[in-house]
């Protein structure tokens, strides 16, 4: 079906789309929705902890908020937001027309969306998961959580995990196989390298959590005893399997942010990335070492001297490539012409806050200190500095940076700066006192604390900071929807960028590139605009091409049906009595849509 047909609009074109740009936009919108949900859960928790012995929410609700805030923010906000950037920008940055398997790309979005709904479905029938986002072993067993809450958590994560697994294979093949002529691996933009490492981490770590969740589900429903001490099961095995997935997972959350920051800093300081190949090797080192440090989450479970020493050393070792990246970012900015747009402010705050988070991480990389920090608010402060001050800030920077490319309009700079400062100050006011709470011994996941503990002041300060951040979120929402209609017009090269996505008009045509671009070096587009010593050049005129003879894969409704089938198959546990038939129905839908899918013409 030729691409000459007009840019379809209307709901049906969005449901059956296989265009990586539309899927990227849908990922972003879904992530914003869940960001609101996760943020609300955080506000509820902070309100409960505002004063000691507070009864704003019951212990049961608080444990649900702790669990769902963690699970939602990690699996339904940061990963999909990174996926939104991967989806939208990978083909544009490597000069391809679309991803390797467009329908598979649509499938992974729909499975993610239905998985997110399944994960949160507990809210409607008061079965919200309460076992912590890590769901340690035998608290999640049937004996100690007899209702369906753990099943919503386990099945929801299975489905969302499957979506990420399919997407990771898709993007892994796209990056390695579909780069434009001349773009060798070491000439790709840095964001593509962090994308590639993230996909490898996803591909290799997700099967471990799939098996662990399967074992928990079998324990709860089919009487097996994998994690039940009474039947010879081992409770520690769950922690091992979860963290073998868990630690690569946190690098999956931070690596895309590192890639985005590398793109933003280079553009707004008009300088190439300092030490490109060193940045590539350190990203790969972080990815590879990510698999060798998992047990630093388990120092207090009595691993024995040699294992504790090994994992302490490996955790410290990971600080070296991370430190190298931070110094390289500072050297990128060094000697440049820094423009403090909102996107750049977010990227710079990423470097500042991620450094701080990384350093507080090194403090409890050594096991004896961790035996004082583990499960206290010091660890909460550490990972919020790295995940919120790091990943979320960089992702917001990415939104401000690529909004003009996606919509053809700039986001408003003044509202942007207001949001930035609300986030920056609110973030530090919330999470920096948590270091003090941690040192003063306040344990995590406590729904309240006694009056005589001396933690009242800093908890109060942290809660106030959280409200400031919420206001910042509202300012962002206003800015986002206002700029959609009334933002200043932006042409193709909105920020005088350096990578291929700025060479095409914004919003780009459905077929991205009329003629496949050829690239001779890294930041090729920059050296078409400026010579090596900075004199302005006349960029070559784009050749003519006939858009009609560009063949694009047609829309297809099979992805959404297959995704629905998988989710229905996974929700057999939640229907009393006829659960088996619900699952069989789901499996039937899956089989039918697989065959329908494969017989669909290209």
């Amino acid at each position, binding site marked *: 079906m030729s691409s000459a047909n007009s840019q379809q609009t209307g709901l049906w074109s969005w449901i059956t789309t296989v265009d990586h740009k539309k899927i990227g936009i849908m990922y972003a919108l879904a992530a914003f929705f869940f960001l609101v949900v996760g943020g609300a859960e955080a506000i509820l928790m902070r309100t409960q902890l505002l004063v000691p012995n507070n009864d704003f929410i019951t212990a049961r609700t608080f444990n649900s908020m702790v669990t769902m805030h963690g699970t939602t923010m990690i699996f339904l906000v940061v990963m999909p937001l990174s996926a939104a950037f991967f989806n939208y920008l990978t083909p544009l940055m490597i000069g391809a027309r679309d991803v*390797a398997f467009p329908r598979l790309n649509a499938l992974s979005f729909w499975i993610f969306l239905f998985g997110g709904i399944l994960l949160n479905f507990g809210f409607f029938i008061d079965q919200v998961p309460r076992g912590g986002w890590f769901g340690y072993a035998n608290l999640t067993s049937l004996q100690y959580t007899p209702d369906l809450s753990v099943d919503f958590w386990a099945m929801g994560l299975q489905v969302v995990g499957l979506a990420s697994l399919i997407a990771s294979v898709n993007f892994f093949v796209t990056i390695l196989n579909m780069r434009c002529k001349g773009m060798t691996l070491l000439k790709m933009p840095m964001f593509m390298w962090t994308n590639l490492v993230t996909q490898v981490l996803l591909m290799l770590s997700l099967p*471990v959590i799939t098996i662990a969740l399967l074992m928990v589900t079998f324990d709860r429903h089919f009487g097996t005893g994998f994690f039940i001490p009474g*039947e*010879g099961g081992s409770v520690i095995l769950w922690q091992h*399997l979860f963290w073998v997935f868990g630690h690569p997972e946190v690098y999956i959350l931070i690596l895309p942010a590192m890639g985005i920051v590398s793109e933003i800093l280079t553009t707004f300081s008009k300088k190439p990335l300092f030490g490109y190949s060193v940045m590539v090797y350190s990203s790969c080192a972080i990815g590879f070492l990510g698999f060798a440090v998992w047990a630093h989450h388990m120092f207090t479970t009595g691993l024995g001297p040699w294992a504790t020493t090994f994992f302490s050393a490996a955790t410290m070792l990971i600080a070296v490539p991370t430190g190298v990246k931070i110094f390289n970012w500072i050297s990128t900015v060094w000697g440049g012409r820094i423009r403090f747009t909102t996107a750049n402010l977010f990227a710079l705050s990423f470097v500042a806050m991620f450094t701080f988070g990384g350093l507080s991480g090194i403090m409890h990389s050594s096991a004896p200190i961790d035996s004082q920090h583990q499960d206290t608010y010091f660890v909460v402060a550490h990972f919020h500095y790295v995940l919120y001050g790091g990943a979320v800030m960089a992702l917001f920077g990415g939104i401000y940076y690529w909004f003009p490319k996606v919509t053809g309009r700039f986001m408003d700079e003044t509202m942007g700066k207001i949001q930035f400062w609300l986030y920056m100050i609110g973030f530090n006011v919330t999470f920096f006192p948590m270091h003090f709470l941690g040192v003063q011994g306040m344990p995590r996941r406590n729904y309240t604390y006694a009056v005589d503990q001396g933690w009242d002041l800093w908890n109060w300060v942290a809660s106030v900071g959280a409200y400031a951040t919420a206001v910042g979120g509202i300012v962002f929402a206003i800015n986002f929807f206002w700029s959609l209609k009334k933002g200043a017009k932006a042409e193709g090269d909105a920020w005088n960028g350096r990578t291929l996505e700025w060479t095409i008009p914004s919003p780009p045509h459905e077929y991205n590139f009329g003629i496949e671009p050829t690239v001779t070096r890294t930041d090729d587009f920059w050296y078409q605009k400026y010579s090596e010593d900075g004199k302005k050049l006349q960029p070559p005129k784009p050749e003519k091409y006939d858009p009609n003879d560009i063949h694009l894969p047609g829309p297809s409704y099979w992805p959404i049906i297959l995704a629905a089938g998988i989710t229905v198959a996974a929700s057999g546990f939640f229907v009393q009595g006829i659960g088996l038939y619900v699952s069989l129905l789901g499996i039937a839908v899956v089989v039918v849509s697989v065959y329908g899918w*494969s017989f669909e013409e290209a």
Partner: protein
Amino acid sequence: MSAHMETVTGVDNRKFAMWSLIASECFLFGTLIVNYFVKRNRGLEGPTGPEIFDINLTTLSTFDLLMSSVAMVLALHYCRTKELRKMQAWLGVVVLGGAIFLGFQWYEFNHFVNLGLKLDTSVFGSAFYMLTGCHGLHVAVGVLWITSILITSLRKGEAWFNDTVIEVAGLYWHFVDVVWIILFTVVYLFVYI
């Protein structure tokens, strides 16, 4: 889909995707094997490994899966040399081999259940059934997949010689066979370790 695109690495997208899936499945079966190894001596009641494993039957099923793997390679070869009848014949042998393996596994599971080792009898039983069951599921999916290819070839005859589809299915089938080679050693031959 992306059937006829020349790619940077020269490898067809679908073949590259299948190898990535195989890389990912290494971790899947790695975790299952670790779980089996941790649990095999921790079962409290019910029969244990040495009592019920029948090495002769499992060696036969390993041999059968190997032959099915050989048949798959030959089918691919004849697809490339465009000899339709031979290709269809060897595809049939592959499907037959897979079915026989599933038959062996069905018989073995029934035999163990009669001996008192159900899924929830002991931790050893659950770990064993999860590992071999997951592999059995993969074999079943493979048999279904290659049967569909055989039916397509029978229906379309000479007009259809898509060696990429057969190669990708072949990769999956060989991987399933390779996993069984490891399982055969780890589960049945290391039973006295």
